[in-house]
């Protein structure tokens, strides 16, 4: 899922200073699991805005904010309150925020959250980055994503900086390649892996902005 974090109140305050009336849009998917786009988050934002003397004309939690047409249908039910708002505050990831920007070209659309990474949830509201959407998955070889979990994205084994199996960049973490090496040993893949060399990685697959047409199986990088 996409991990988001609420911006600091002072930051939001600086963005909305010149506006009086607001419509709030959350998202029931990732942002809800992060606690940054659910009903509770919307209510807290609403209370704070009202305490600052602002008007909240209405709110909705979009089912999937990044699904542009679905969100358009849901928002159409709130036509009046949306029209009355000078500004829309979006409690989702950056993708969801831009759905709203596209749907309401005449309104000011402001994100309430910062978008952090694609994450796994370990415990409730505890997230870890495991995949960075690099466009070419090596997990079949390495077991864990060394492109993401190694801060140097090493493709061919650890650097020389680990100590007692811990990463030089963050000693709280195990070296991603020490973990990957263990996995490869268990799968009896080590010797085969080192017969060759992995890479150089085709980073063009990660160039932004990417589009993908699943119907035509067509990826385009512009």
């Amino acid at each position, binding site marked *: 899922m996409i991990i988001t974090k609420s911006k600091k109140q002072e930051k939001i305050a600086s963005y909305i200073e010149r506006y009086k009336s607001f419509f709030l849009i959350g998202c029931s998917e990732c942002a809800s699991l992060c606690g940054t786009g659910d009903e509770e988050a919307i209510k807290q934002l609403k209370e704070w805005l009202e305490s600052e003397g602002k008007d909240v004309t209405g709110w909705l939690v979009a089912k999937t904010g990044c699904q542009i047409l679905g969100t358009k249908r849901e928002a159409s039910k709130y036509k009046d309150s949306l029209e009355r708002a000078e500004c829309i505050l979006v409690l989702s990831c950056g993708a969801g925020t831009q759905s709203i920007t596209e749907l309401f070209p005449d309104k000011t659309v402001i994100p309430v959250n910062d978008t952090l990474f694609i994450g796994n949830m370990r415990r409730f509201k505890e997230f870890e980055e495991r995949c960075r959407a690099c466009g070419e998955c090596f997990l079949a070889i390495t077991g864990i994503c060394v492109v993401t979990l190694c801060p140097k994205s090493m493709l061919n084994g650890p650097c020389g900086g680990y100590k007692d199996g811990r990463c030089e960049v963050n000693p709280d973490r195990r070296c991603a390649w020490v973990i990957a090496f263990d996995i490869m040993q268990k799968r009896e893949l080590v010797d085969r892996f080192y017969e060759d060399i992995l*890479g150089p*990685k085709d980073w063009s697959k990660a160039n932004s902005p990417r589009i993908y047409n699943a119907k035509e199986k067509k990826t385009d990088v512009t």
Partner: protein
Amino acid sequence: MLLREKLLKGEFVFTVEITPPKGPDVTKLINKLSQLKELADAVNFTDNPSAMMRMCSLAACKISLELGFEPVFQMACRDRNRIAIQSDLLGAHALGIRNILVMTGDHPIWGDHKEAKPVFDIDSSLLIKLINKLNDGFDINGNKLNGRTEFFLGATVNPNVEPLAPQLKRFEQKLKMGAQFFQTQMIFDIEKLERFMEYAEKFNTKVIAGIVMIRNKKMLHHLANNVPGVVIPNAIINKIENMNDEDVKIFGIELAGSITLDIIRKGLCHGVHIMAFSNVEEVENLLNYIRN
């Protein structure tokens, strides 16, 4: 005789290390090089070590060449993508630089530009492969160059790390990719070096051991805690903690000297690389200790 010839002939080499200046003034650099060239076979210029921004290694190499002191161009993968790496290498070659020591490089988090985007487009094994392709007259994508480079190519290895197995596999991979010599991370524990050399011997490569002189307690703490990949045995840490700084300095030279002598007597490695952090006097002290 060049470093390449000395190593290949089996002559024991002494190399030293200089970190290029933080700023445009090269007066001190030139002074140090003029003194060091009488003491060592070659000088490595570090590539923004610990991700601290400095003058580029390439320019320092050229200055050294002009002074008649053979340089080793250290190149890390942290700050350049494959285009910039190849471009710099071709430029270095045109300027007469032949010795390259490649490494992945410390992460920007250690340096004075922590907000910088880490590049790490390719890792050091791939960089070795890349340089060998340049030596064959091709770029990394197989495009033909208008000639071949003649780089003498070194790689790094860290015999201190635990677990050692993944490090040994990388060492083998670097050899397979065409590394012609190796330089180790700083050695404080001769047994770990012996353990590694026992493994390395069967590959018939040249290994230069990294040696450092601990100057004072502050430096000890810095090396032990802030330099990736450096492992100092607790016995040495405890011993130094009970000394005053004057004694530490003497002990530092004795320790580095005795490790070096051990390496020479046992025929463990093919040279030592003295990391004196650009301090000429310390290089002299160590060499005097060894000779006496």
